[in-house]
């Protein structure tokens, strides 16, 4: 499972959310877009490795925009079917449309309360249990 996120607080909260889901998955965290792309490139080249079961993607990340990372994932060959949930503080229609256009399974706007944040768990479960 891949989490592309630079905000430590968010990383902490999302880790808690994943724990609350009861999913015991190996979590790989990329703290910027370039790092994420490098990982994806490695996956593409190493045929023995497994594609992540899910990608949680923040759009506003350093170096390379999240949308660009998503685009390259979808245009790769091996892991292009990996489900993606965009987790971002943006509620701009522009961003929602871009995510939708690149085949993101879900879009979660980061809330300002922990309670609301925890609802991300439900979304992750539904994506994993009912992939498109």
């Amino acid at each position, binding site marked *: 499972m891949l989490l592309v996120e630079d905000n430590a607080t968010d990383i902490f909260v999302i880790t808690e959310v994943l724990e609350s889901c009861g999913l015991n998955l190996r979590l790989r965290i990329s703290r910027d877009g370039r790092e994420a792309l490098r990982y994806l490139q490695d996956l593409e080249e190493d045929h023995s490795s497994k594609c992540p079961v899910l990608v949680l993607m923040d759009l506003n990340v350093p170096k390379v925009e999240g949308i660009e990372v998503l685009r390259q994932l979808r245009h790769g060959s091996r892991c292009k079917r990996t489900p993606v949930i965009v987790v971002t*503080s943006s509620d701009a229609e522009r961003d929602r449309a871009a995510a939708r256009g690149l085949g993101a399974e879900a879009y979660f706007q980061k809330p300002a309360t922990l309670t609301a944040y925890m609802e991300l768990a439900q979304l992750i479960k539904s994506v994993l249990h009912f992939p498109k």
Partner: protein
Amino acid sequence: MAGDAQVRRLRTLYQLLASLSRASALEEVYEASITSLLDATDADRAAILLFDDDGVMRFKASRGLSEEYQAAVTGHSPWPPGTIDAQPLVVPDTRLDASLSAYLDVLDREEIRAVAFVPLALDVGVFGKFMLYYAEPHEFTTGELEISQAIAAHAALATRRKRAELASAQTERRLEAILDNSAAVIFLKDVHGRYLLVNQHFEELFHVTKAAVVGRTDHDIFPPEIADRFQANDRAALAAGKSLTVEEHVPQDDGLHTYVSIKFPLRGADGVVTGVCGIATDITGRKQLEAASRHLAAIVESSEDAIISKNSKGIITSWNEGAQRLFGYTASEVVGKPVAILAAPDRIDEMPGILARILQGRRVEHYETRRQRKDGQIIDVALTVSPVRDAAGQIIGASKIVRDISDRKLAERERASLLAREHEARQTAELLNRVGPRLAAQLDLGKLVQEVTDIATALVGAEFGSFFHNVTNEKGESSMLHTVSRVGREAFADFPIPSDTELFGATFRGEGILRCDDVTRDPRYAKNPPDQGMPEGHLPVRSYLAAPVTARSGEVLGGLFFVHSVPGKFTATHEAILTGITAQAAIAMDNARLFEQAQWIQAELKRSNEELRRANQDLEVFAYSASHDLQEPLRTIAISAQLIERSWGSQLQGRDATFLANILVSTTRMNGLIEDLLSYARATKYEGGPAPSVDSGRILADVLQSLRGLIQEAGATVTAGELPAVAIHDNRLAQLFQNLIGNAIKYRGKEVPCVSITATKRDGWCVFSVADNGIGIEPEYAERIFGLFKRLHGRDEYPGSGIGLAICQRVVEQYGGRIWLEQSAPGRGSTFCFSVPICP
């Protein structure tokens, strides 16, 4: 023998006297004389010759002479005519006489050897001769010559007497012929009134013969009273002893005739009056003519019209009362003068033409022309001119009837002038109607003034025209420009702009049209230094026409100036045309200026719209960045604070707990503010076409549904009237309702809140009003409440960021509408109104 000869001579003489006394013609006198000569002498041939009136001796009678001989000797005379005491000449032998040598051959051929010349003479001298011819030489005896002289003396006397008789008879015949051929009645009466002689005309008129009338008196021929009058006149003439002229009336077959009789006494050779002679001329026809003529003259004199006659040379020969009245001249002033004195100065040329026409025998009828009175006044007249002929049909002049038609002409002229003026006015109006749209269509101020100048210059017929007009540039600086027409700008390049001189100033001050036939004679002309008139090199100017162009506001936009080098070129009509043009030009210039302003405003509007759009765009960009860049750290703070609270909340004490709580509250509020700001930024009109029609009632129902929680919590009553369809995007209308109704409930007083929504349509707009019974607003805050983040109350009292009404105002204004606080007072509730467009 001598006694026999003597006897023969006496007998011959006796027989001659008898013959002469019987002779009725001169020829008989001559023949008898020759016969006597041949009887009384030994001559075998004889002849008588007389001087004619030219003094040439010619044969009157002869015996035994050839024609040749007579012709050869005619003219020969021993004596000149009238010789006194001429004596007979004898030539006993022609061959021996030298005096006849010239005739010797002639005499020999005629076998004449001796001749005698015997003079025929009276107290007046020789007037002829007897010739005695002899075939043999002859010795003349005394007796022969004496008897010849005696015969000559008798023949001479007889010839004279006969000549006198013949002359007398001829005179009588001539007189008789004259009398008989006279048209007059001629008669002779003796002192007792007895007719001695009447002429043929008398015979014919009174049916008498000369023979029958002689010896009779007038009483035998005429009625008694006529006869008495005749005789009285005869006696008067006799008593006067000289010729009298009297008028006498005589009955004739065709009625009473009038005669002019000249009666005079006849005297004998002794001077004693022997009778009276009368010569009477019938003047009945002349009398009738005179009467007719007097009648005609009366008609002519009493005629209203002037009746004038003139001779073939155009000299006035008669002049009636009417003529005097019409022309002011008396007859004595003009008769004998040429008719040309009556012609108007501009019509003198036509008179020879009229006269020529008359002399051709043609009439001139109802010829309308102009004549001049004695006092110089010109009058309109109608002429009828007819040729006048003498008895032989020769044209000797003309009669002319002149009628004064000045009144009629005046009326005609007035009517023509009215028609002309009406026509002119109509033309001017049409002209201006054509010019108006052309000027109105020209919105470029520069082209417009040129067009105005060109059109006006052409219409007033100026040699050149110019338009001086004020212009104000963008910086508000005023200056004067000018356009010219029909002449190059360079013609004025060196001259100063017309300034506030006496002449130009009036126009630039807007004091109306100024028209001068000759500007150089205008008192305002040449009053200003330095030029004192036109500057040197200026085009010549006499006629001057200037008009101000004045805007509706009263501002003088400029002046139109037209000139011509010939004086008196501009008329009242040109002035009228110019008045029209300046009015149209002023309107067109106003329009052009407005158009320029409108264009500027439009450009300005476009620019400000662009600015607005950019500002909106900036706001959206801001809003977007706010959602990411502002909200992101805030959210991180909030989440982090919550994590701290979750981990340490129960352990924090006192101030620390308060600080953490403040962080949490402030982040929440900050988040709310950002959300509101975002809403405000997005409260713009959707781009891409006009708003669709929206059922405002349906939108209200949706809004009330979403506000259900709030309404129920407050126990509020919301009522709405009939709501129309409006042209505004549905979510924007919902925003308006939501904010206003939400406020109405939020700012409630102690009473149960009651909200009423109504709508009224007016002039393409729908005004919604939302009235409540809440706490109300102080009037002084009526404007301020629409400001961004403006609040009137403490946050503890009434929550909220103070952005609701600002958003409402922004939304409404995006659609061109307005929002305002209709009425409010503290504790008495508020009514908010907003207007949005209705679907067209």
